[in-house]
């Protein structure tokens, strides 16, 4: 078989089928399937996760705090405005997580970000929210 061949062949019966690892056609189909999935995700637009998982530049809505979160820490964050039903925009995650809320920028350690439960929204929806 030459290098461009995408087929695999059974040595016993001679049956031939497309090799999914080599076939450009299969890879193209996979790409479109992934695109469809992400479009579906974007249309629903919502995904519950933690602030640490929100990619830089994206917005998320605070929905709560982890149960392990110390109450005084939570009260402190709430006093800063990190309260349920509010939007935050993640600026970066390294070296620390930086978020924007209202007209305030807060730097917090990734462990704190992991304790803040949020609902991710698509960038399209974030733009609409703006």
């Amino acid at each position: 078989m030459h290098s461009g061949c995408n087929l695999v062949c059974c040595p016993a019966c001679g049956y031939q089928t497309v090799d999914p690892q080599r076939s450009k056609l299969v890879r193209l189909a996979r790409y479109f399937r992934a695109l469809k999935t992400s479009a579906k995700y974007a249309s629903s637009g919502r995904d519950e996760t933690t602030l640490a998982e929100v990619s830089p530049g994206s917005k998320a809505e605070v929905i709560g705090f982890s149960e392990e979160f110390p109450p005084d820490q939570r009260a402190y964050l709430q006093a800063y405005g990190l309260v349920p039903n509010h939007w935050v925009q993640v600026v970066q995650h390294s070296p620390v997580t930086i978020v924007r809320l209202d007209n305030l920028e807060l730097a917090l350690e990734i462990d704190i970000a992991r304790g803040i439960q949020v609902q991710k929204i698509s960038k399209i929806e974030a733009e609409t929210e703006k």
Partner: protein
Amino acid sequence: MQGQTALPVIDQNRVGSIALVGHPNVGKSVLFQKLTGQRVIIANYPGTTIELARGSLRNFPEITLVDTPGVIAFPPHSEDEQVTGRVLLYEPLRAILQVGDAKNLRRTLALTVQLAEMGVPLVLALNMMDEARTRGVSLNLTLLAEYLAIPVIPTTAIRSQGLQELKEALGGGHPPHFRLTYPVEIETAVANVCTCFAAMRLQETPISHRSLALLWLSGDPVTERWLQDHISEQALQEFGALRQSLQTSFVEPLSIIIQSARLAYIEGIVSAVVHETGAGWHGVSTTLSRLTTHPIWGWAILAGVLYALYWFVGVFGAGILVGLLDENLFGQVINPWIVGWVNRMIPVPFLVDLLVGEYGLWTMGMTYALALILPIVLTFFLSFGVLEDSGYLPRLAALSNRLFRRIGLNGKAVLPMVLGLGCVTMATLTTRLLESKRERLLVILLLALAVPCSAQLGVVMGILAGVSFTAVLIWSGVLGLVLLVVGWLAAHLIPGERTQLLVELPPLRWPVLSNVTVKTVARIEWYIKEVIPLFLIGAVLMFLLDRTGILNWIIQAGKPLMVGWLGLPPEASAAFLVGFLRRDFGATGLFVMQSQGLLTPMQVVVAMVTVSLFIPCIASVMMIAKERSWGTALAMVLIIIPFAFLVGGLLSRLLTLIGWGV
């Protein structure tokens, strides 16, 4: 003036001071300065004010204004926030002036609601209105004042806008009739506690009974302390039982339930009075802000900042200015004139020696302090002032967090550490902005051990630069290693959990020249008051020891340590002796020895490392005792001094072994 006629009205009903309260970095100290005409240190980072500042209101000397450390919310989170809590509970107040950030109304109101519940006349100054406008935030202040039933005054304190209106509002202040309804279980408990207060005849509570009860239910440590001072042990236990039983009615902690009720109320107000156009986060300042905390560009910018600092303090301050002052002005003009004058006017040789001899008050004490140290501290405080006002320091806290994490701290420790490069005593006071006792203790230890103040840094750099660049590298390498190893060890030995970083990043701003100058002058004044008496005491001590022959005896007695262990000439004992007063004084003594050619390069490095690891100065030891306890201060002295000699001796052996600078 309307303000002048209006203000005394308040006196008829209440006596006491006016407390300036608000979140960190919202301009309380600027307003304090404008309203009292008194100088206070102002900077663009949260936690600048760590102690109370008091001043009389301009034109009203009988009315005192108290500037308090910033507080995020009650119950307070750190020691400096507790200072504000204590003002509200222990100080007789005629009014509270809350300073809030106009562009972050939601956060501001979270504190306003708590203050309004206290029942003390309250005025809200919504500051930084200019920034709010730039960010596209417009506010309906009339509606806001109606909702809260308190005067709301827009101000831009830095430009003196709104100050007259503020004074008038303070004059007409009356206790707000603000009442927020909480869940029924909490309302019942509050009513019970208030009935108990009334039964105990606690008439003279500084704030309303209702607010006191809510603070108690939220677990506020300052309120607990206040109640311990004012009610019986049995009553306190009954309150404790009440709080515990109330907690069983909720899954969430009581403090969160109470706070959530307030936040829900605030949300309604905010949606009615705030209109945002979304101009938000654009411009050069925002881009630069991102770069300063960028994982790669952030370090490049830091390197640039450090280089600029080195150039201004090291090259210009310690090199050019010290050269001009020490060699030219003092060495050729002032000192020869004073020595000649004293010799002519005072016929007693003992007094001549005391004033202008080898260890004379002028020739040693004043010349060291004014010609060698002052230019270095001046240039450092000027550059530190610029850094503070720009808002760079909190970004440095974010950038360096990982490094501090390794030694059991968080990035917030960078603020006292950098200030420690200016003055360790001031920096020890600043550790109050750290959240836990453990962190404060750790930072105080590291400051006392391995952070050289600008005066010492300047002298050390001056000496080491004269040896070689390798000498500078060895010295800074050893100090850095000690900082990391001791920090790592102490973090593992001192019990307690590390606090995670949570810091507000204020907007980057252009430093205002007048503000930088004012605070540099204030710091220099503070420094001179601290340094000159110690330098003079040191000079007198050395003079007396020399005259009585004790110095010679000490030099002989110190020989095994100086010569045997550190490998230094015996005369170095004298420098280490004054190093107990101030380590830069000791370093200056070694500087003189080096300039006389008494030290080899290896001896210079060993001496500098040892003296840098000494206790910074007597004033800093007293500050440690004040901030922590005399026991802690004594323990630190007993650990640090033998440790400094141990590291110096080990370095001496290592350098001898490799044959460097022998």
